[in-house]
């Protein structure tokens, strides 16, 4: 059944996006008006098969009837006909390019079809267009985004999404298991967890959720218990350190060092440790970790970023620039890479280049928030 009710609720919002073509189509003569009215009536009467058939006929008569494509998409999604739903929603999106809910619903269809990259792309584009502004929609869409990020090995981004979900209070077993998978860096969905690992995943998720909710003493107790119950399990110390890095850098560095005892060759751990040390201004101390990370996994953007930044900060600006440029090749809007470039150019006295990078950084960091007056 999926989340049809959600998107039927969203239909009102989506209707706002309907274009002039839709109005024109309704005004055209012949069978169309009759079929469209009948489709609408069947839908309201919950006669879904009939409604689908009538909407199909209507959009065959008028392919530019956006409303028809939208309802056809939602109805097909509701009966688990995801391939056809994607087709209908794609027509709707062509006619209504800024319809966030349609992107999100197409993303959910693609999720069901196993097209995970496409699904994530559509969900994120839908969110950028406001599909998650409604709190109920936000929970479902963000959850799918988070589990997809985990499935696609983008664990840090997944943890960031889960943090938002937890802060909104939308925590249940699925979410907790999802967090656990991201913590353990296991690229799978909660439904795929092997029974032998359910205890570990759930406990990891519960501990991390405490950090995300700001319960630091509770998190410390939960992680300590976790480390005792599952010693030498990779990624627990890393993820705890990662989650702590924005609130307690000392503790974060300690946890990352502990992870290196378990995973001495992990590029992500070395690069995160290098980053955390760099955030404390200890760039010389960070450099060996950054170098090790780049050596172990040269394609890891975080490793390149840490190495580039550490080289720039320790005086080897020319040595650092290629690493930063490598990051920007894969991610042209990476704020941290542009921050590093701004500093490098400024140190080199390339005033115009530095200014260009600074202006770009200001743009990338968005409007931001009002500066807290007591900072």
């Amino acid at each position: 059944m999926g989340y049809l009710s959600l998107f039927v609720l969203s239909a009102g919002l989506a209707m706002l996006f309907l274009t002039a073509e839709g109005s024109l189509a309704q005004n055209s003569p012949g069978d169309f008006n009759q079929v469209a009215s009948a489709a609408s009536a069947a839908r309201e009467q919950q006669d879904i098969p009939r409604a689908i058939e009538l909407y199909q006929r209507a959009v065959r008569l008028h392919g530019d009837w956006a409303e028809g494509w939208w309802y056809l998409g939602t109805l097909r999604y509701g009966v688990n006909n995801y391939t056809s739903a994607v087709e209908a929603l794609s027509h709707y999106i062509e006619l209504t390019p800024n319809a966030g809910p349609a992107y999100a619903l197409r993303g959910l269809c693609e999720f069901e079809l196993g097209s995970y990259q496409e699904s994530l792309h559509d969900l994120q584009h839908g969110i950028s267009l406001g599909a998650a502004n409604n709190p109920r929609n936000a929970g479902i869409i963000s959850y799918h985004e988070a589990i997809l990020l985990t499935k696609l090995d983008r664990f840090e981004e997944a943890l960031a999404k889960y943090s938002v979900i937890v802060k909104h209070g939308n925590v249940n077993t699925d979410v907790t298991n999802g967090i656990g998978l991201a913590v353990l860096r296991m690229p799978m969905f909660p439904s795929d967890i092997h029974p032998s690992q359910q205890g570990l995943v759930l406990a990891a998720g519960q501990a991390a959720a405490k950090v995300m909710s700001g319960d630091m003493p509770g998190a410390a107790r939960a992680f300590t218990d976790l480390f005792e119950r599952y010693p030498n399990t990779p990624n627990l110390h890393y993820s705890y350190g990662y989650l702590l890095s924005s609130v307690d850098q000392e503790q974060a560095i300690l946890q990352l060092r502990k992870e290196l005892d378990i995973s001495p060759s992990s590029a992500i751990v070395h690069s995160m440790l290098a980053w955390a040390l760099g955030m404390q201004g200890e760039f010389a101390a960070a450099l060996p970790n950054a170098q090790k990370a780049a050596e172990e996994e040269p394609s890891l953007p975080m490793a390149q970023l840490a190495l580039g930044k550490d080289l720039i900060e320790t005086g080897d600006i020319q040595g650092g620039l290629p690493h930063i440029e490598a990051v920007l090749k894969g991610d042209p809007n990476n704020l941290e890479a542009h921050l590093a470039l701004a500093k490098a150019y400024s140190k080199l006295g390339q005033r115009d280049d530095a200014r260009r990078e600074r202006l770009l950084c200001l743009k990338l960091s968005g409007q931001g928030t009002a500066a807290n007056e007591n900072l």
Partner: protein
Amino acid sequence: MKIYKVLLVLMFSCAGLSAEQKQSVTTCGSCHQKQALTQPDTQMGRAMQLPEQNETLKAYPKLTFHRGAYSYLVETREGTTQYIVSDGTASISIPVLWSMGAQAQTWVLEHGGHMYESMVSYYPLTRGLDVTVGDDGLAPKTLEEAIGRPIDGEGVTTCFGCHATNAVIDHKLNLTAFKPGVGCEHCHIGANAHFANAMKGDFSNSPPSLGNLSSEDISNFCGQCHRSWELVVRAGWRGPANVRFQPYRLANSKCFDGADPRISCIACHDPHKRVSREAAYYDQKCLACHSEAASMAPPHAKVCPVAKSNCSSCHMPKVPFPGGHFVFTDHDIRIVKPGEPYPN
């Protein structure tokens, strides 16, 4: 022989100085007299004050304020100050140990094992108490909450890290041997060891000279407390409240060049001296580039067609800090257009 000379200089240098100044002089002033004599009286030197040295609290021994159901009394008697919060039926009295700020003062308070930033602060503009900036949104429901904003371990470390010297060691708060205010060791890391060695005649390990840092590096160095450009961007702090983050504002200026010493923080401000409030004082700094006579003027440096003096009065406008109480000089140096919004 060298040691005796040092001690001789110390004896003379210390005469007529406060205990605080003497402490500074006995550590560094024997050789660096010029800096040590004036630095303790700068705003940075007085960034934290202890009650017995707090001239403001001595001058205003009974400061009162009412906010909602709570009243505040900051009372100084015989060198000790109490911060008293009352709801009419009960009260909490906390000794003031640490006053943050050379002009406006906010107090860091310890109560029940927790640290607080005082709900009210002293403001020189009104010569009285008002709500601490940024705390307007706090709506205390209990007497404890009315004390002020709780500050966690990292927050306390940040306060003491910038307002005191040697209070944070290896990123951890250590109040066993700290010195209030920004002293020599705060910026010149290794100054204490250098002094100890110098007393033995060993002058080989001088702290690195900060004067040799590039404008970019000195901006980041000062930005550790005054907030660097990178920190503000990363945090996304926008709006007029960021006017007090001078390194951030300066780096946004079109004329900022990280390799040109003429636009460095220390090109205009000697950290060992009190900040000049006279616009004319800074004219020569601007004219070092923006003048037909300027040697090595960068090609982008235009000569002002309007005036040759008081440059900063036009190009560095005064910006009122949100909530009142302060006006800051905007270090985003620019051609200011009438009615333009605050450039973030």
